[in-house]
């Protein structure tokens, strides 16, 4: 029985057994027509497909459905390939656990929120809070992203999340960042200049690489600019290399320009504000 009015996510949700007409199976590839599916219905179907043995899921006509990939946590660690045609909704790949998502189009806010592992490739632009609290895996955005990208990204040992942005970002990129790697390539910048402010405010771990012009006043006071070293170029070669491959750019062209490397000045930015 449907409860009225109160729940925008669950009201009107149909049961799995009446949704079968939306799925087509072809061996281990499932294709879902998402056109009029609600968030939960689509994710119910995706989970069903994965449990039925699908290892690749193609989603057609996606119109803002949220949490794509989130419900695919299986203790057995099955890895899926998900292709999205259309525009996925907020929290695409939130808590993602090792799957690979390719979006043929733009994505909205919260891509890879608290993502644990896997890869998200967006052949378009991303919204706000991309890669918030991301903990592992890689996200590639072909164009630009909105505000507050990579907030509180963190790393542990060899679990280092990576976010590559082809264009630029808005303010507060890498705020509170505690680890991980952010690469902003600045492709197609007007006058070659980034416009974001407060980059790396409160940052206390990780690295941000910026290609394109950036002025000191655009940075948070907790970050400093340091010289690029050999291992930085190796990191860039690997991740920008994949970026070029995914989106058809020339790696040498992208790496021929100057990069600004930002790191936090302290692992403890707020260690000295207290009286004991």
């Amino acid at each position, binding site marked *: 029985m449907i409860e009225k009015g109160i729940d925008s996510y669950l009201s009107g949700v149909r049961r799995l057994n009446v949704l079968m007409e939306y799925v087509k199976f072809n061996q281990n590839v499932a294709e879902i027509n998402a056109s009029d599916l609600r968030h939960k219905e689509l994710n119910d179907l995706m989970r069903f497909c994965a449990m039925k043995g699908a290892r690749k899921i193609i989603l057609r006509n996606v119109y803002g459905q949220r949490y794509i990939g989130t419900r695919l946590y299986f203790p057995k660690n099955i890895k899926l390939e998900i292709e999205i045609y259309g525009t996925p909704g907020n929290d695409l790949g939130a808590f993602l656990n090792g799957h690979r998502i390719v979006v043929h189009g733009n994505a909205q806010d919260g891509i890879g929120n608290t993502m644990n592992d896997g890869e998200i490739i967006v052949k378009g632009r991303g919204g706000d809070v991309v890669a918030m609290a991301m*903990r592992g895996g890689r996200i590639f955005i072909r164009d630009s992203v909105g505000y507050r990208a990579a907030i509180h990204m*963190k790393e542990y040992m060899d679990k280092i999340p990576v976010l590559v942005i082809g264009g630029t970002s808005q303010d507060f990129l890498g705020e509170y960042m505690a680890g991980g790697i952010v690469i902003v390539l600045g492709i197609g910048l007007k006058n070659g200049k980034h416009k974001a402010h407060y980059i790396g405010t409160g940052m206390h771990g990780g690295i941000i690489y910026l290609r394109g012009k950036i002025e000191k006043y655009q940075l948070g006071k907790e970050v400093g600019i340091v010289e690029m070293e050999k291992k930085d170029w190796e990191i860039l070669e690997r991740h920008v290399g994949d970026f070029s491959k995914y989106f058809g750019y020339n790696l040498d062209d992208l790496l021929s320009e100057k990069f600004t490397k930002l790191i936090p000045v302290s692992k403890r930015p707020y260690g*000295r504000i207290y009286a004991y």
Partner: protein
Amino acid sequence: MKSYLLHDFIVERNKERCINCGACINQCSFGVFSKDEKGDIKIDERKCVGCLRCVIFCPANALVVRHNPTTYRSNPYWTREFIQDIKKQAETGGVVLTGCGSDKPYKIYFDHLLLNASQVTNPSIDPLREPMELRVFLGKKPDYLEIEFNGADEVEIKTELYPNLVAETPILFAGMSYGAISYNAFKALAMAASEFGTYFNTGEGGFPKELREKYGKNAIVQCASGRFGVDPEYLNCAAAVEIKIGQGAKPGIGGHLPGEKVTDKISATRMIPEGTDALSPAPQHDIYSIEDLSTLIYALKEATNYEKPIAVKIAAVHNVAAIASGIVRAGADIVVIDGFRGGTGASPKIIRDHVGIPIEVAIAAVDRRLRKEKIRNKCSIIASGGIRCSADVIKAIALGADAVYIGTAALIAMGCTMCQKCHTGKCNWGICTQDPNLVKRLNPNEAAKRLINLLRGWSLEIKEMLGGMGINAIESLKGNRDQLRGFGLEDWELEVLGVKGAGE
């Protein structure tokens, strides 16, 4: 710079009793005691925090710790505390930190509420001989039940029920992170909750992997702004997930676990490098509105396959009722309200003592609002922040809560003496410290035993009080304000609390 601060305590050693064993030297992590060249025990009482570890562990009962009688000229306005804090800030230029809940003498509404008992007209129940139900179900309840009768004695509920937590007593352990408290304290809480059939809350410092299998089914894991150790496995190993928006001791501000406390094991549990400050930003940056909160609630429901209730914890603040209504409408199954007396491992003192409202009025306001809007069944309310005894539990429930969280009381059961020095990381009782030499002082088995005893004692008392009212199930007391009377309260206070005055 010479410190102008007066020391807080006087430590006196009875030389006739003292056997010079040096136990006090070993016990005090603050360095009050030492031996001079002659082998005599020396006391530097400026370092004493009044935690009483030395007093209790002195085998000769030779120590007395008391407040330093030397103080400033008496002035009810410029109290010793204000003068000391100003001097401390003048010397350091910092924010004054403290631990534990607010100790300020604000009015305590629990102490102005009196419980009812049956006399003549409605017989009281003796809980020792008659069944008494303390079990509570926490989570969303359906608007109505569809029931199908199959034959004479088979009844089936047709309505799809929401996942609920089942606690054998309406007392749960509040969120205290591994990092804020020691591993042994954390483990003791997990053990006690599991043995008693209630729940403990991991706080936001992650959940050590080796404890998950055994204690996961009694764990409520937190997803807070720092998102420490939050991965799908962490979310799915627990009984419920709590989104922490705020905390009674420090509403509106974040948390900093200083780098020196991020040891090897803590770094593994929080999944951040050793020695890095664990910063929990004040807001969750993906939540700037009720709609955003809803997005996270459903993200967590998606990540846990709709199998677990999702709780949202907020500090009790001025518009708490409206906020709670929004939280329920956003899809939360449990709303946790933490009053301004709530404890903390470290909080700016100024925030702890001046921000937020009492839990009693917050419960009453939230319960009334949710009832008025006819959405009270869509969530359970857990009240927390300064629950000191079983009477506080029962009063909180009569005001409208489903259950309570206890934090400070649990720590006191394990040995805490409320010295308010949690933020120093030198807790002599092995509770609020990461120093391995101090942590090993707390034996998790014994601490768990103390916690279980406390739960047992309070539960028995609750049964007695319920029986006295002629009620045989705690759920029948929920929001039953008829069982409360205010005493020494003004009209507006009675109105906010929704209770009558004594004698009415």
